[in-house]
């Protein structure tokens, strides 16, 4: 079954967001990693830049296809997860194994806390996944 933790917020483009103060940690959901299949490369191209909500912050390359990662919230991209960038071993595979933990992608300093209301809660995201699965 697809895991959707209740304490996180979600986007329609299958990112998850963990909000702690004015910092948002961003990753892709369990559903997204399963759809993408084996992830082989990740790049956070917007590291150190200010982004608007829904702007691409980087991309994720899987065996099947390459997809953009979108900013769930506006703000400055402070940090990218170095453990998934390492060139040796199967580093990006961490996203497949632990999408909500060690496989996080980047951290954003939230510019506008009002935007948080536009994110989906776990129930709304579960609905979205259900619809996608029956596509």
């Amino acid at each position, binding site marked *: 079954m697809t895991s959707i933790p209740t304490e996180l917020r979600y986007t329609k483009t299958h990112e998850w967001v963990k909000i702690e103060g004015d910092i948002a940690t961003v990753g892709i959901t369990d559903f997204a990693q399963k759809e993408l299949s*084996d992830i082989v490369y990740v790049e956070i191209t917007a590291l150190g830049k200010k982004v608007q909500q829904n702007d691409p912050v980087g991309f994720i390359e899987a065996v099947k296809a390459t997809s953009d990662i979108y900013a769930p919230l506006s703000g400055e991209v402070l940090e990218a997860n170095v453990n998934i960038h390492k060139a040796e071993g199967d580093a990006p595979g961490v996203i497949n194994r632990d999408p909500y933990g060690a496989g996080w992608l980047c951290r954003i300093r939230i510019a506008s806390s009002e935007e948080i209301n536009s994110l989906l809660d776990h129930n709304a995201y579960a609905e979205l996944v259900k619809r996608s699965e029956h596509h």
Partner: protein
Amino acid sequence: MSPEKSLFELSRPGRRAWSLPELDVPELSLDDYLGDYLREDNSLPEVSESDLIRHFVRLSILNHHVDKGFYPLGSCTMKYNPKINEQTARLPGFTQLHPMEKETLTQGALQLMFELGEYLKEITGFDAITLQPAAGAQGELTGILMVRKFFEKKGENRTVVLVPDSAHGTNPASVTLSGFQSVQIKSTPDGLIDLNELQRACSDCVACLMVTNPNTLGLFESEIKTICEIMHRYGALVYLDGANLNAYLGIHRPGDAGFDLMHINLHKTFSTPHGGGGPGSGPVAVKKHLEPFLPSPVVKFSDGKYWLDYNRPDSIGRMLAFHGQFTILVRAYTYIRMLGANGSKEVAECAVLNANYIRKQLEGIYDLPYTRRPLHEVVFSGTNLKQFGVKTLDIAKRLLDYGIHAPTVYFPLIVPEALMIEPTETESLESIETFINAMKEIASDARTNPNNLLNAPLTTPVRRLDEARASRQLDVNFNG
């Protein structure tokens, strides 16, 4: 272990596959000409003629290719390449010609390029052409750079190129590489360009719309005239990705529909080798208003002579050394001359018929997310087999066991678990039936014997590869 050793492993000192005749001109020292550039140890393989021939024959047996079997790779138009193309391309008058030879001594080659250009213009409905680009994606880049130059010349600052989500993946890449911002246009549930979305995205910042028609679902944009009119109202240009020209060859001329420019894939529609079999060729045809920006030089004909026009101040410059992939142009020219106008039309008719026959036969066995009648290719989805733990990748791998190349999978991105099938016109009914039966057997195996799929391929020289590991631990060096 590799099923075939490389030539470097087969190498033994002193073996030769070719002996040169006795020297009949004075010998010159390479040191005098190359100096420091001369490498002492080149480590080139040394093999006998029989070693060499056997090596390549064995590789061709291990490989899958269009001379060996069906190759329904959607979007790639892997049609059979007639062998007469190879005969003309090997004529010594062409192969022994140097590209820097004087025009007076290359009239035949220039005439061929000129006439090929005229044929392609007539087929597509455009006014001028370059044969230079080396492939479809380079054709796109050439086209979009011309679009940029067109607006620069007009003094208009346009920054955006619109690309529908049903376009080829290279389109947004070409847009980005040309310095534009690529903005995606969503398709309707029918799989066509959404005219309302398009209108909303239009502004005087938009330089161009890049259309793949028929799109990657094989669907013809029935509103294409209106689409071109909308773009022209905003002063924008419309680019056609001509990769799918096989669907309407000799039937529809994109220039008449209102397109400003397009690229043509000679290696798809005009039967020149590709897919590891040869270099590509992506001529770009344009309307009059874009002619000044064509890459230099352009082949011209006047006063009974063919010549190369280098005096083109507004040209975007060169896209490739010399004159493009010349012997590929010879092959495409031969193909067009062999088919003639009626033959070209039959190509499209049979390509469309074959794709739709497959669609009808496999409907209900695989999901068909877009139900409009396609042209030359059909996109199924393997979603209905997911419940048995089988993915589209497994279906594709299993087809290899039937001696059939897998279709394009997981593309277009708007179809989950996509299987994109393009049979082309060169397959017989028997070969298409063989494919259909294989697809039916695979679907039934997915229910009763999924391991056959999950472990496939079972009979190929190399079994299933660990693609994720190959990408994560990329190693492309030969270490002896």
